[in-house]
């Protein structure tokens, strides 16, 4: 039996990837020069390069993020656009039963890292958010996503971290247009136990434009944070 406290422990464990020791004093050096936000994360051996300097490259508008009807952890009907417009969003698609280590768990581990590290970067708090939508609405009910989101909403430091919207839909009719619009491929096996999918995280700007798409090999929190910072610079948010 997996309990809520145990899941919370996992969240704490993910903090191991955060270079807390390197981040004393917050995002500004003693000289007042702002450090790249990505420096809150330790380099990982699977990403054998340093991220670029934020703001030194272009993030092109890839396509418009689709709108759609979703349900939040309180069961409230909302639209994706009302959640995403006006903020920079890292949008991910998962299903809670996923056991593919190169799938949802990889995305969630990275997002937990970013969520925890965000406490160290106050500039992010009101401008950036995480959005996670289940593509398994039959099993990932409102009750299920509420339980999943428990460590986030019960976090004593929640008000210092990024907002994280965990969402589901009322069913396939609402879900499929959203998946199609994002280009998130999902194949359902006959037994419905396993849902084959490609890991994707989408960077969406405040105007609702998809500005980057991350797959395997790119789910590096340093890289995601560098792109977020680049968008914040572009939008005059920092």
């Amino acid at each position, binding site marked *: *039996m*997996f*309990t*809520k406290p*145990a*899941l919370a422990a*996992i969240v704490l*464990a*993910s903090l*191991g*990837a955060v270079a807390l020791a390197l981040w004393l004093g917050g995002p500004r050096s003693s000289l007042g020069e702002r450090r790249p936000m990505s420096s809150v994360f330790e380099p990982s*051996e*699977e*990403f*054998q*390069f340093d*991220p*670029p300097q934020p703001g030194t*490259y*272009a993030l*092109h*508008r*890839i*396509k418009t993020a689709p709108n759609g009807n979703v349900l939040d952890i309180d069961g409230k009907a909302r639209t994706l656009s009302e959640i995403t417009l006006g903020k920079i969003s890292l949008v991910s698609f*998962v299903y*809670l*039963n*996923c*056991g*593919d*280590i*190169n799938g*949802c*768990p*990889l995305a*969630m*581990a990275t997002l937990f890292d970013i969520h925890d590290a965000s406490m160290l970067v106050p500039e992010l708090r009101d401008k950036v958010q995480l959005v996670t939508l289940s593509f398994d609405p039959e*099993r*990932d*009910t409102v*009750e*299920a996503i509420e*339980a*999943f989101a428990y460590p986030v909403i019960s976090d004593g430091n929640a008000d210092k971290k990024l907002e994280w919207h965990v969402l589901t839909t009322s069913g396939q009719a609402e879900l499929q247009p959203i998946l199609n619009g994002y*280009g998130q*491929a999902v*194949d359902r*096996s006959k037994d419905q136990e396993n849902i*084959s999918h*490609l890991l*994707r995280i*989408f960077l969406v700007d405040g105007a609702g434009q*998809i500005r980057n*798409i*991350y*797959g*395997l*090999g*790119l789910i590096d929190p340093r*890289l995601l944070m560098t792109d977020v910072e680049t968008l914040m610079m572009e939008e005059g948010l920092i």
Partner: protein
Amino acid sequence: MKRREFGGMAVSALALTAMPFSVSADETCQSPYMPMITGHEEYVYIWTLGVEGMGDEQDKMVTVDLRPNSDTRGQVINSVSVGGRNEAHHAGFNSDRRYLWAGGLDTNRIFIFDVHSDPSKPSLHKTIDSFVKDSGGCVGPHTFFALPGRMMITGLSNDEDHGGRTALVEYNDDGEYVATYWMPTADDMQGAVAADGAVADGYGYDVRALIRKNIMLTSSFTGWSNYMMDFGQMLGDAEAMKRFGGTMVQWDLHTRQPKKVFSVPGAPLEVRFPWGPNANYAFSTTALTSKLWLIYEDDAGEWQAKAVADIGNPADIPLPVDISLAADDQTLWINSFMDGTTRLFDVSDPHNPKQIYEKKIASQVNMVSQSWDGERVYYTSSLLGNWDKKGADDAQYLKAYKWNGSELVDDFEIDFYEAQLGRAHLMRFGSAALYS
């Protein structure tokens, strides 16, 4: 949902933080962002040039059945014509492998085939007619390299002088234009540095990436004015023969910014990165100088380029074309067009490749594709419509072999002229198992 169902995901997430990352790869030589066929390939899609006076005379995507127990194995089971001749050339899947993008070097049209709805019968899903206009003057869509949600396309030419100066062009998976990145030139290096006196020519051909190093490499061929010229005429035109690329460019994959220009004389064509977790190098071959090149990271972390082997006798100009690196990185198939020969190199020491086998496939050979397990190797014939050999030497085919570890053993072949199909060019494998 039961609480215990969180376990599978959360425990995996914990384990993941301590696990080394391994890249998911496609069968041997395609974009590592794509799903791969590690079992038996079921179909091969062959992008085929229409020939005047033959069949419907149109370019077409031909599907051949490769299923081991199928009654139609080794036979053409589907053909989708695209309504004209475009100088059909290369093709590549998008990152979820549901669509196969195929380009026309002459008309600049891009045809997007749906290969997932029925993998045995691809259908034409969309045609992009605005490549030149979209890109701001890029001509000759060549390589289609999948990025997550996007397609990176190399050009071969431009619409100003139809020479070799060209660009990389990015579209989203819906076929909508995203961005153009012009190749660096000596006059505009875009921040790149020239290695060992290299002169950036701005030419393009192939593109490949090593994700964990954030490295993208491009190579260089020639422009529309040459690739659409009769081969014999071009060989006799001294000015035309000067218009070939002689560089490769190292890019920052994430920012799409050029970083370093290497001198690789003689038109470096295909680029292949290995799959090994510590293999920090790529291979390319030069068409005109018949050399195998290694682009590698040195001990100081700098990328370098050097020739590491001859391919056949360079003085005979065998014209190396397609290459295929085995999934275990130990061997490399290299085709040469003029002598119709395939050669296998032992590249276990990438700095000292050794040829270990060769076989004449036909009077001419261009493309080679091997299965993920390396046990089956497929060849097609056409290089370019105006460069293919003439008369009886103009063999057009798909030939399938089994590799038993020491020699290629005949499996089956299809004569594309006898079947009234045209000139067989690029191959890509399909499988229904990808879309369960």
